[in-house]
Structure formats: structure tokens, C-alpha cells
């Protein structure tokens, strides 16, 4: 898709071209637009990692995100795609014990990693305590952000336990506590447009043994 052919835009583009930093960025554009015919096959790479304790080996288009490798290749659709840009948190999974936005990393970066998704935390017949608390406290509505919220919630409690500091601590050298504000601060990368936040805080507090 090219930019619109409109005189005012052309002018503004030329204006942009005079600035040094922008020139570097823009100079790539003509080359791209006039690129030689695209290669007939995408570049692929093999990658092996563990998902929910199981070894998986895939040969993937190198552009495949960890998120799409889970959803489209392994058919683990519990991990959600809300924005594909690291803005919403719906794709949160736990990699080597730390939560990440799986849309922001390529699958081939995860050779040898251990990935835990929502499906790895519990099942409908055997819920993880955080999953059970979300049901009890109605910590969800449409359910689309929920797997990401739960993966984050599980990780947040571990992060507090491990003493990882946050922006809302009065004293960042002290051990963080399982307070309402501490948990809310750390959960703020997971958007819930239905607005279940107050209930999610209660679910997390119940699991942490704290007051919401």
C-alpha cells in the first residue's frame, strides 16, 4: 500500500526528507518499494522448546511470533491475540518463569525455552488456584483478556515474593508487600475493557492471602 498521491502530502514528505535522522529512515523506503521480486519461499528455521512440560519441535517461517506458534501451529488457542503489538497483555505467557507478551517475540528466539500457557496452569476439571479464584470472584466478563490476566496474576505474586521492586513502592530497597496497589500496579499491562479489575484484585488477594 503506497502513500496517497496528494500534493500536500508530497510536500510534507519532502520537508521530512531534509531532516537528518528522518532521511536515514526514509531512504530505505524507495529501495523497498522498488525491491526485486519477492523470494518464492519464506525463510524457515527449526525450533524446539517445551510447552506446558511437553517437548515440541517446529519448522517455522522466521516471522512467526511465539503467540502465533502457540495459537496457529500448536493449536493452543487459550493465549489470545488482542493487539499483536504488545499493548494489551492478552497474549501473556510465562517463559522460563517470567511473564512476557508472546506477540512481541519471535518463536525462533525461544530455542530450548520452557513456555507455560494458560492451558498449562490448569484444566476445567482441575483448576489452578488463580483460575478458581477468578471464577469465584467473577474476575472476568467476556473472557478474552482472562488467560493473559491469569498468567500475569500468577507471575505477579511470584515477582512480589521474589522482592522485585515496582514503581509504587515507597522504598524500593524494601521488600514489596502484597498490597492492593502493589498488585494493581504490576497488573497494569493487562487491559480488561469489560472492567473486571476490582474483582481481579479480589481474586489475587484471595490467592495471596491478602486484603483486596
Amino acid at each position, binding site marked *: 500500500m503506497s502513500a496517497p498521491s496528494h500534493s500536500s502530502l508530497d510536500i510534507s514528505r519532502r520537508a521530512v526528507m531534509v531532516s537528518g535522522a528522518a532521511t536515514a529512515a526514509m531512504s530505505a523506503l524507495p529501495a523497498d518499494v522498488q525491491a526485486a521480486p519477492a523470494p518464492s519461499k519464506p525463510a524457515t528455521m527449526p525450533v524446539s522448546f517445551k510447552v506446558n512440560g511437553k517437548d515440541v519441535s517446529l519448522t517455522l517461517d522466521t516471522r512467526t511470533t511465539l503467540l*502465533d506458534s502457540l495459537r496457529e501451529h500448536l493449536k493452543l488457542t487459550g493465549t489470545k491475540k488482542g493487539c499483536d503489538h504488545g499493548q494489551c497483555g492478552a497474549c501473556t505467557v510465562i517463559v522460563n518463569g517470567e511473564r512476557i507478551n508472546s506477540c512481541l517475540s519471535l518463536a525462533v528466539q525461544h530455542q530450548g525455552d520452557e513456555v507455560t500457557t*494458560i492451558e498449562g496452569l490448569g484444566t476445567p476439571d482441575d483448576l489452578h488456584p488463580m483460575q478458581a479464584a477468578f471464577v469465584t470472584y467473577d474476575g472476568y466478563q467476556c473472557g478474552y483478556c482472562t488467560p493473559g490476566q491469569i498468567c500475569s496474576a500468577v507471575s505477579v505474586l511470584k515477582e512480589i515474593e521474589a522482592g522485585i521492586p515496582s514503581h509504587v513502592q515507597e522504598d524500593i530497597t524494601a521488600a514489596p508487600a502484597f498490597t492492593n496497589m502493589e498488585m494493581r500496579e504490576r497488573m497494569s499491562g493487562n487491559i480488561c475493557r469489560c472492567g473486571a479489575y476490582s474483582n481481579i484484585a479480589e481474586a489475587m488477594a484471595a490467592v495471596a492471602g491478602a486484603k483486596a
Partner: protein
Amino acid sequence: MKFETPATQNPIDQMKVIGRATDRIDGPLKTTGMAPYAYERHDVASGQAYGYIVGAAIAKGRITTMDTSRAKAAPGVLTVLSTLDHDKPLPLGMMNIAHLYGGAEIAHYHQAIAFVVAETFEQARAAASLIQTEYARDKGRFDLAAAAPSAPYEPSGSGADAKDIERVGDFAAAYAAAPVTIDQRYTTPGESHAMMEPFATIAGWESEKLTIWTSNQMIAWNKGSLAKALSLKPENIRVDSPYIGGGFGGKLFLRADAVLAALGAKACGRPVKVAMQRPLMINNATHRPATIQRIQLGATKDGKLTAIHHSSTSSNLPDGKPETAIAQTKMLYAAPNREYWLKLAVTDLPEGNAMRAPGEAPGLMVLEMAMDELAEKLGMDPVELRVVNDTQVDPGDPSRPFSQRHLVECLRTGAEKFGWSRRHAKPAQVREGKWLIGMGMAVGFRDSPNTKSAARIRLEKTGRLTVETDMTDIGTGTYTIMAQTAAEMMGVPIDHVKVILGDSDFPVSAGSGGQWGANNATSGLYAACVKLREQVAQQLGFNAADAIFADGKVSAGNRSVPLADAARSGPLTGEDGIDYGDIVKKNQLSTFAGHFVEVAVDAYTGETRIRRMLAVCDAGRILNPKSARSQVIGAMVMGAGAAMMEELAVDKRFGYFVNHDLASYEVPVHADIPHQEVIFLDYPDDKSSPMKAKGIGELGLCGVGAAIANAIYNATGVRVRDYPITLDKHLEKLPAIA
């Protein structure tokens, strides 16, 4: 079943299952990632190919050329569709204003203009970037404030009854004579639904029959609209939408994802899946229009309103509708002299259409701020001002009573529980360290619409029940209240009920929108259950009127038979729906709330933090207090967004919403929202339906934005009348630090 007279005693009144706080029956699926949303249904059709949508890069004009040759030659590409494949736009679906696809004309930014289908998502995305489009750009109209002065009236009523200005009494004279008045102008910005699940569809054809697995609030509308858009017979279309990742009005209508997936699947002879890319969502689809509003209030010295003027100007694409921001003012407060009007300007921004509490939300954000201003001018408590102006009848037509209206009780209860008496009437008086503390309140008011709704319930040979309807659950808790209704009516535990929703092959329901879903859909199921009870009674040799359904048994006199026995020779099916007579027109069916909010504003930076929120709600019988409470708190969160951060920023040169993703269109996050309290008053409404319930999904949003704004004013003494109240709008005027 026709509902024509007030409901009498019925099995729902037992309240053994209905009215109990019940965990969602779909909860274990949603919390484990096992609930299948539209894009995820790998199992429904084999060989699914991937679609990618290209959006227009101009807001108005036409496409002169589009070169798709490089995209077509790219690896893995199966087909490339161009809007230029069609001479003119595909026919409009129901309620759509902007055409979804087809033709060279561009009516708004990010209108869908091409669709690439490939073997993989990565290939489709890469190929889409190779399409070269040239445009002839037209000058568009993108500035509401500039268009407003010459905007025409949008008459109320129709035909001979149509009026530019709606009048009761003599507003001008009453306002001129009023000892206390206020007259202010307010603005509310455009807002986006920003639901977490993007528009998504898998489409598959079997000869002439099209199935779409999609994400949509209104299944029958969607099916009918798709039939129109693609010139298909409705009976050749099936729409299936069992799980919906939020909608808020954004998924009421047919969208481009469904149209393009269907066209793409036809073209490549394979099922095609597509999720609209997040950065396209906001400009491609609908939004809540911005408004410019004016309110004039005249009152006696003891606070009785004598004159109300409310007017609002919004804009839309040609043939669009206005944001009806004045609607609630017509019925909220008694005043003998009233005047209202709407104006509608034409702009070339994306389509304005329904977003949760359309009209009510921006209208009450303004009316309830104006009432706060009037209370201050009167030297009167804001709660008392609302109480003295309460009405039990429609002020425009006193022959129409409210079926029930416990607004005063909402306010009194809320004031007591919230500690309202501790509020300082004079603003900017309470300081805690660096924080300026304030309290605010506002009224919530939203109609509870009655609309037809049907369902089917089957008693299986096992004695278990299966409910089938095209009703949807967009996070509202429909699955659970439907199971509760069936369990209550048939006398079985809730886990004996299976609920299947969102399939257009099932009876047509109310669907989800306008806070009409819960009351109407459960009433439709109630009617189906009555039919099934009759069949069961007949099968077991009971008189249906005498039979008691309880504890898995059917009993009358001293005879008692297991319910399952009725289906021994085969399943029994009850199918019916609810329809409404005049009763719901002769009475005004509405829901009410008192919203109370405490905020802290940073005296140095002007940042606002909400500290406490309480809503006291009068909304008929509450079917499931757990999910109903979630509806209310969720709406309060959306209201917090509207009051404090949400705003679609318009690029008036190029005609689009600049902040078209989830990072730049800011919605509330965990850190923004404190613990929230909700109290439900217990008033089943026998004039509403056999369920005696009403809507609850939008009430929580109505008025809450004004309660926050009023709290901010109480904290700072700075009145900001242009939403959202961001720190830049009051920082300069905050009280001196030292």
C-alpha cells in the same frame, strides 16, 4: 407468549436458583483458555487460509489505481481481492451507515479496500504490504466545532409530528423569570469501544451455503445483513458466535471481517479466517460520536427546577444518526417548562454509531455536571437537589407513570453508605498531604427496553435439559442466567442444564445490546419452559396448572414422578418466545442509580486518582447478583475512562482518529480502578416481564462520568466542562501548593 398484564406469582418467584449469586457456568472454560472465540475454531472447517485486510490511506476521495500484481505473485498467496473488483459498494447491511466494501469511492479512513488470502498469516501480511494504491483525494469535513454552527436540526418525531425543537410549556419565559439559573456549554469527545477481541471471522462455503464463525452481538441482524451484502438467501447462511470477546455496541452490526472472509473463501475455494488488525479497528469501524452540548437550568430558591434547556450537536457521515445526548433529560427531572433539540452536522470521519449507553452516557455526563453546578449556586446539597426534583411520571406526558422508580432510595442509601455527609460543600477544602480530596455524586438513568425474544428447551432422555437460542453472551453472563431460568422453571439443579447460544439455526432472541438482553432473553426462555412444562405434565398425566416442578420431580396432590420419566419415549421440546403488549408502552420502564465517587488529585501534578466508587442500583429483579454486579462495575470502569482519559483525537487535516490502537487510545488499567461497591435495591418489577427483571448492562455507565467530574471539582475547585478531565485542563488553576 404475549405479555399484556402485570406478571402474577410464577415459578421464578421461588428464587431457589434465580436471584442467587452464581458462578458463571462458562467460567471454567474461560479461565482455562478452552472457550473457543471466532478466530480460534481450527476444528470447524479444514484447510483454513489466512486473510489480511488493507485499509484506505485517505479519508475521502476515490481510488484511481490499485496494483495487486506483486501481492498476487508473493509466496503463499491464494487470492487478492480488490475493492475495484466491484463497480459499486456491496449493499448496506442493517443499521450500517458506511459501506463496508466495494467500489472506488472512499468515505472514511481505513475503509477496507483490499483483502489478501494466503497459506499463512505471515505471507498474507507481507503480500498486503506490496499492494500499490493511488488515490484522488477530496477535501473532507472533519471538524465538528467548525461544522456545528451551520448544522441543521435533527427533528424529533416523524411525519407531521416532526419538530425541530421539542417544547413543553414556555422555557424562555420561565428561564427569564427564574431566580437561580445556570447556562453552560460542554463537550464530550469521540470514544471507541476498544473491545479486547478484534473483529474476527472464519468463513466456509459448501456449494451455495455459507457458514461464518464470527464474533457478533446480534445474530439475526448479522445473518440478514450478510444476506443483503452478498445477495444470498438468508436460509443459505449460518452464523455461529458462541463466545464474544467484548462488543459494547461495536459488534452489533455486520463488519468488514465477515464480508471479506466470505468473499475470500469463495474466491479461493477454501475456508478463510481473518481478524481485523488492531490498528485498523478504530477508523474502520464505528465509534461514539463527539458532542457539543448546552444546558440551561432555571430553579426556584428552594431548588425546584422550573426550566430546562438541553441541546446537543454531533456529526456523522451522510445519512447517519445523531448521538441522542438529550434523551435522558426528557424524563429524569420534573420541570414545567422544557426545551430540547438535536443538530446533526455532516463530517467525513468514520461512522458514528451505538456504543454502550448511546446518548445516555455523554448526555448524563453533561446534565449531571450541570445539576452539580446548579446545586452549588443554590447552596443546596447535590443529593437534595435531585430529591426535590424527582418525578414518578414522564414529565413530558404525565399520563405515563414509571412502572417503578426508586431513585430517591438509591440516593439516600448511597449517601448513607458512602459517608456523603462528610463532604465539604465548598470545594478544595480537604487536603491529605499532597492530595486534594473531593467527593461527587450523580444520577444514573437508563431505559429498560422490551423486545421480542425466543428460545427452545429440550428435556433429554437422561432428564437433563438443553437450551438453544441465538442469544449471545458478550461477557454479560447470559449462559448462567439462562441456565438459572431453566433450572428454576423445571425444578432441577443448574448443572443439569446445558446452554447453547449464538447459532442462527436456533430461535431468534433479543440479542445483546441496549441493556435489553437479560430480561428479554430469559423471558423468552420462560415462555419456552411454560410450553415444556405443559408437555411434561401431559406426558405424565398431570394438569399443567397444578403440577409443581421441584427437586427433579413433578408433583401434584400426593403423586410425584421424576421429571426424566416424561422423556422416556423420546426428548420433549418446548419452543416459544416473549412478545409485549401495550403494558410496556403505557408505563415507562427504566432503571436508576445513585453514583458516589471519591477522588484524590495530586496538588503538584494535577493527576487524578479515584479512591472509592459506589453505585446503588434500582433495576428490577437481579437474576444473578454476581454477574450483574460485574456488569455494573465494568460500566463504572468505562465511565472512569470517559471522565478521565478516553478521547479519539481527530487529525483535522487528513480526517482520521490518530490514536487508533490500544496504547494511544487510553482506557483504564488496573492501577486506575480501586475497589468498587455496588448495592442492588430489591424491587422486582411486575410490569416489565414474567421475570420481573430489567436491564443492568448500561446503567452503571450512566452518570458515573459526571460523578467523577463532580468529585474532581469538589477536590480542586476547578470546573472542567470539556471531557475527558485530563491534568492539563486544570493544572494551571489548582489551589496554591503552600
